[in-house]
């Protein structure tokens, strides 16, 4: 069974925010809510990198663990979705999520929280696929139409990848291997840098290909 994943290639993302715009448009996201955002590290300095982030559809999802009404469910594709009819807008999922994915439309006085909204991997919610109800509450359900999330489909540099985890990791692995030079920084290639793991690098060095 497929397990859907996002991956953002920090070597390719150019911080164009196309994914953010695509998501907002595709899902008619309420004002003030951003299901996806691009974060730039070391903005304007040497080694600047950008990453696009939304819900990562965790396997052991912290949001689902803390939800007081247990409104999250994991689909067969490994997507973490939630039921807005059950959600009470308490904000606990937002405290627990590592990626700041859950969002809250301001609802009523004193900026009180409305029902939580987050990335659905363009897979809608518990309602019938592509029903008007589902569209109103969760935005589009592209997965039911056999399409992948629009953010990744729109990405101009193909930095943002979405799809079956094994396919995504294959694509990324090939990129890493084939990118000869200047993959990590000017003048440093994987070939030189990864023969021995240097201090602070986690993971294994690969000698493949």
């Amino acid at each position, binding site marked *: 069974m497929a397990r859907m994943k996002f991956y953002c290639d*920090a070597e390719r993302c150019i*911080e164009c*925010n196309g994914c*953010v715009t695509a998501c907002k448009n595709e899902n008619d996201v309420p004002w003030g809510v*951003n299901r996806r*955002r*691009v*974060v*730039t*590290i*070391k*903005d304007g300095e040497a*080694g600047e*990198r950008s*990453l696009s*982030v939304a819900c990562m559809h965790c396997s052991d999802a*912290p949001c689902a*663990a*803390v*939800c*007081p*009404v*247990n*409104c999250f469910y994991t689909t067969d594709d490994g997507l973490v979705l939630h*039921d807005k*009819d*059950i*959600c*009470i*807008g*308490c*904000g*606990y999922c*937002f*405290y*627990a*999520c*590592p*990626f*700041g994915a859950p969002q*809250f439309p301001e609802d009523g006085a*004193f*900026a*009180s*929280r409305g029902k939580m909204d987050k990335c659905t991997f363009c897979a809608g919610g518990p309602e019938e696929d592509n029903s008007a109800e589902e569209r109103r509450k969760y935005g589009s359900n592209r997965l039911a139409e056999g399409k992948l999330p629009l953010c990744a489909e729109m990405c101009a540099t193909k930095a943002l990848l979405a799809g079956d985890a094994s396919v995504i990791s294959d694509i990324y692995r090939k990129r890493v291997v084939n990118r000869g030079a200047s993959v*990590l*920084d000017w003048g*440093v290639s994987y070939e*030189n*840098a*990864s*023969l*021995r*793991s*240097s*201090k*602070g*690098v*986690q993971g294994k060095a690969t000698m493949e290909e």
Partner: protein
Amino acid sequence: MLINHRRVLQFPALLFLILIAFPVFAENAPSSYKPVTVPNPATDLWRAVNPQQLPPAEAAMFPGGDSQVQGVQSGVLINQLGQRWRHFRMGQLLPTGSYLLAGAMLAILLFYLIRGKVLIRDGESDKKIERYSIYERLIHWFMAIVFLFLGFSGLILLFGRSLLLPWMGPELFSALASAAKEGHNLFGPLFLLALVLVFLKFVIRNIYQKGDLTWLLKGGGIIGKQDVPSNFFNMGEKTLFWLLIIVGGLIAISGVVLLFPVFGQGRDIMELSHVVHGIAAVVMLSVIIGHIYIGTIGMQGATEGMTSGYCDLNWAKDHHSWWAQRCIDEGKVMPKQQGAAVHHDNPAPAEAEK
């Protein structure tokens, strides 16, 4: 940061042990590993993505990122504190909280079975003293109702998923939890108001004074049978008051931080507020269970003061003898009038008058 420090310390300690145990390894190690001279720039990127995993001194060098999406902490890619908060709520607050509340109730039950109801030593008298004015009773019951409502609605949020959801079903429980949340948010600020009013009205009588320590050492005259004098409020009541002010104050302040996400507070502050709110609420609820018991079924004559405003003279002599003596000296003792004090022991008011 606790975990990280531990991890940072563990590694050298382990290495040290290995080096001591195998001197051969220690000599061979440097020659078999050549350090890489090319620094890997990706490490800086991933450090900045997750600065909370670094020791504090280094974390300051990686202040997180920037994002076009405006919002509190929108530049933080990975918020590791969330995982700690999750473990606090699910692994600590939930089990410990339930043990504490259940323990408090069990302790009260045991106390009742062993000690029994605290009776007025010489029985009820036919005289009474005014104990609480209308205003004092009003703010007491205002606080009591608001506190209990907040307590129950909060407990629904905390324990509902494990206790109520399984048999109520998601739709019904969601409606209940939603009402609990909205009610909790609405009545929350009223608790702060009640706390201020109660503080202003009762603080002078609750300042600790000579004799309070003796009261404590003698178990308040409840454990054992000695006569322990005290003033308007005894040591136990004063302690309840200060617990309420301090722990209740923490509940109120942390609650307001959680309630209004408009002060620019980030997730770290909110997680901390929730930790304070959760612990303080569970502690205060356990204390209040004891208070409610001793104010109602646990002690003869205790409820009257807060309901009718008058207490029995003999009750006052038992539990607040200095205050009772002062009232006697000042001539504030009055006979119980018809209707003002109808007791179960007295079959008819007409008879009680005699």
